[in-house]
């Protein structure tokens, strides 16, 4: 890479390994400061929630599936499906995307609350519907992380929301406000941002989740005007007025989940396109699209490039961000996806 193209490339992007930026901001908000604050709140809240458990109760977990069916006695409100997997076999901890608790999808790092039946789902099952869905959602989540991290501190990006996952649409999506008017990233810039996602595989961060109150959620996301508008509605729709917050490394975001177990499950990862969109409630935004395939699923580079070309097109399946939360994905979608192949 020549020197000129490099300076052009690093015009907006923050590449820490190569170029150090000394952007001291006294008045303006920066993404890194906001992230630190959110992390501190998350840690505090988790400590508080753990301190509420004073007496350890036991629950009975029936595991079904390979290597063998077995029964585990675990701690109520503390043990997660990941802990169960660690007791059974190591490969379950590595490959499992989500768990099925009483046949309902459940995060690998979410504590179990009652006696239950437990199954583990990975990406190469006969029907990996839940794993695919969780993976697509997690990729949108990671897109949010990249968009907050990739820019220099002087550019304060605000994440808006991501639509429910639909794998056949060809790309996962995050709608975001980028403070650079009419900016279209070059091919190299897209590649650089995609690499941030691909490198997460080596970092092996886990997706932790926490149910928090509306007031705390509002405090946590007070610097994000889109999320603050959405939170009251979401709390009204969710059970018990709680908001589920996920943390991956130092990135925090709201999602109903479930998300995948760890970032080491990410294989190929690419950001393919930025499209300008206008939402009736949130104004002018940018729709960022990407494509990824888990490491467990092997894909030829030609095939991946072919799919990436398709992922460049504007994703029409993804609904525009609006104040009303998009309706939850119905069971019909699964049916549709199941029958998708036979209709071809």
């Amino acid at each position, binding site marked *: 890479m020549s020197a000129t193209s490099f300076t052009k490339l690093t015009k907006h992007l923050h590449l820490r390994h190569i170029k150090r930026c000394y952007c001291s901001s006294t008045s303006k908000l920066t993404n890194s400061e906001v992230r630190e604050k959110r992390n501190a709140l998350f840690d505090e809240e988790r400590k508080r929630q753990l301190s509420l458990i004073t007496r350890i109760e036991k629950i009975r977990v029936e595991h079904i599936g390979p290597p063998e069916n077995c029964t585990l006695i675990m701690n109520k409100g503390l043990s997660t499906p990941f802990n169960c997997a660690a007791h059974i076999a190591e490969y379950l901890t590595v490959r499992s995307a989500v768990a099925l608790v009483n046949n309902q999808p459940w995060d690998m790092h979410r504590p179990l609350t009652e006696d239950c039946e437990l199954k583990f789902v990975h990406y190469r099952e006969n029907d990996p519907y839940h794993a695919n869905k969780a993976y697509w959602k997690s990729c949108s989540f990671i897109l949010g992380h990249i968009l907050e991290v990739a820019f220099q501190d002087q550019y304060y990006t605000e994440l808006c929301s991501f639509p429910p996952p639909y794998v056949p649409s060809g790309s996962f999506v995050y709608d975001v406000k980028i403070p650079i008017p009419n900016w279209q990233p070059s091919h190299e810039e897209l590649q650089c941002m995609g690499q941030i996602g691909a490198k997460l595989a080596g970092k092996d961060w886990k997706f932790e989740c926490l149910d928090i109150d509306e007031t705390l959620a509002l405090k946590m996301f007070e610097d994000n005007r889109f999320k603050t508008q959405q939170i009251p509605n979401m709390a009204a729709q969710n059970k018990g007025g709680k908001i589920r917050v996920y943390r991956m490394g130092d990135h925090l975001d709201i999602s109903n989940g479930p998300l995948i177990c760890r970032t080491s499950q990410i294989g190929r990862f690419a950001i393919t396109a930025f499209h300008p969109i206008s939402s009736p409630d949130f104004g002018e935004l940018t729709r960022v699209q990407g494509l990824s*395939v888990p490491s467990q699923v092997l894909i030829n580079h030609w095939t991946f490039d072919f*799919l990436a070309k398709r992922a460049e097109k504007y994703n029409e399946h993804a609904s525009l961000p609006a104040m009303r939360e998009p309706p939850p994905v119905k069971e019909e979608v699964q049916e549709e996806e199941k029958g998708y192949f036979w209709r071809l």
Partner: protein
Amino acid sequence: MSLRYPYKMSYRKLRGTFGPGGGPLARITRLRMVVTSLIRHERIETTWNKAAEARDYAELLIQRAIKNGDKHGPTMELADFWLLEKDLIHKLFKVFVPRFEKCPTAFTKMYRLPYVYPGKGREMGLLELKGNPWPPVLPEAIDKSKHINNVLLNAARQDFRMEQYKSMDMSSDRWHKESVSQMSAAMDTVAKGSGLEETVTDTESLLSDEIREEKEAQEMRELQRKIDSLKNRGKKKHRDEDDDDDDDGTYV
């Protein structure tokens, strides 16, 4: 009647089935033993060549048994020859005939086995009758159609086809409209043939009749050629519709 799987026309050499010098008789005796044990155990392991040769005879035996039944002299003779243990003749007619009566494919199946090491370095094979009581040789195949890469690829394929259909409709429409307008314009000028004379200027009127007629004929010929070429192009477009769809510049 023919065998229901790809088989070799030439025979395989079975060397030293009963030590050197056995001759063709030893070969047949050895194959009789293999067929007998196949009917007895329904799944056997032996060298690849022996299994493949015995397979042909076993298939033929079952086919004849199904076709002719147990009251057919030659078939009973055949069964008596190939089955060294005579209780297996009953098994052939009472177990395998009902089992394979409606089987549309071959009755047997073969698998390659790994070399035995240390050993004589022979190719090993597994021969089995279908519908046997043993557990399956291969594990159950995984259905990969719902893996994330295939979901994406299938969706891409569907997208591609939809685009193809759309562009085909578009192009045929465009051809229709444009060619009709151009053709009608050309036809109008031909129909106005006499009108050409009226527009001839005075200087031209001074020319001799012969030259004028020649010029007129030339113009008519040119128009005819234009019409023909348009027609031909239309035909060609119809033929090539499936191949190339995005050629906007062809009619300009």
